[in-house]
């Protein structure tokens, strides 16, 4: 069973056997494709922070 922000649906996990209860998974047409890597979930914010810092360095600080 996978909870989609409140709605629960049966999902086939045959291709994501490593998924544990409590994990986030990417689901497409009732089929799990990938387990979401929690350690990478912040990467999009981290990249922006690094870019901002890089820019501050170039411009000689804030």
């Amino acid at each position, binding site marked *: 069973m996978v909870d989609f922000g409140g709605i629960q649906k049966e999902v086939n996990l*045959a*291709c994501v056997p490593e998924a544990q209860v409590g994990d986030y998974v990417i689901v497409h047409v*009732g089929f799990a494709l*990938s387990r979401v*890597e929690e350690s990478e979930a912040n*990467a*999009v*914010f981290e990249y*922006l922070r690094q870019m901002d810092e890089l*820019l501050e360095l170039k411009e000689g600080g804030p």
Partner: protein
Amino acid sequence: MKYLDEYRDGAKARAYARQIGRATTRPWAIMEVCGGQTHAIVKFGIDELLPQFITLIHGPGCPVCVTPLEYIDKAIEIAARPGTIFCSFGDMLRVPGSATDLLAVKAGGGDVRMVYSPLDAVKLATQNPSWEVVFFAVGFETTAPATAMAAYQAAERGVKNFSMLVTHVLAPPAMEALLASPECRVQGFLAAGHVCAVMGCAEYEPMAAKYRVPIVVTGFEPLDILQGVLMCVRQLEEGRAEVENQYARAVRRGGNQHAQELIRRVFEVVPRKWRGLGEIPASGLRLRSHYEAWDAEKKFGLAGHDTAENPECRSGLVLQGRIKPAECPAFGTRCSPEHPLGAPMVSSEGACAAYYRYRSRAPGGVADGGNMRKG
């Protein structure tokens, strides 16, 4: 829910747009491959947030849109057979065939049903043993594992009244066909994150090297897309042409090996005709001979259909990224989601439908914080 609204944060989106503005010194044209990305770009106004130097070209990544007309006609032919339950994803039902569409077959008494998953269609076949249940299997590598599992389950369980009309397509050969065209304007790609969740990133490496084109595997949320654009622009500005992975939270370099094995076991790679693009070598999947008892084309002896597209529909040019939907003379007048001339006006992932829905009325978007907050 954790990590959903955060990826739509308006302030961070504008911060990304500023970074993209600073990184850009000349015009660049970047194609997002996936229809889900196109939908998000138009819905959230991401293209309007970007510097004018950056053009986003909407790629052929809407599965419904690239399914050739002859397969729509085949689907209609099967659906109209007595004793048949024809199952499809919802947005295929309204795609016009050469004479009619699947909804019209349903209105005429045909049993045409919308299903959420191909596995539901197998279940339906088990529950209705005296009916032929046929599933219309369209989609990219993202959908192929579920379809493969449906064929596998039907074979394992001996569900003989189930079959599939398969018109699966593969993303990288279409990207390569666009790059090989002399009219190609694409200088960088945002590759489809969920395709890569299945197939991995490695298959793009030869393409990036051969055509000197950066390819950034990218997710579907606004911040994902903006980060993908920034990574792509930085490569272009620095003269690099590499495969990078923006969507590492869902995509591993090798993809999902279990899903790839399932696809390989059930399907073989064949040439496939794409709506708007023509035939592309090694760009489709069909059931292997071991599964031919579940192949609807073989089961119902469908002859080759030869069909001409509606000449008024410019979806071919839209799917190649050569015109924007609103540049088509029929857009919003003779062609609308209520009366579509072509598939891109039907599907939620189609560029024409996205423009119709989000651009025909109030302007605005991410720049004024409007669309971003609503999600």
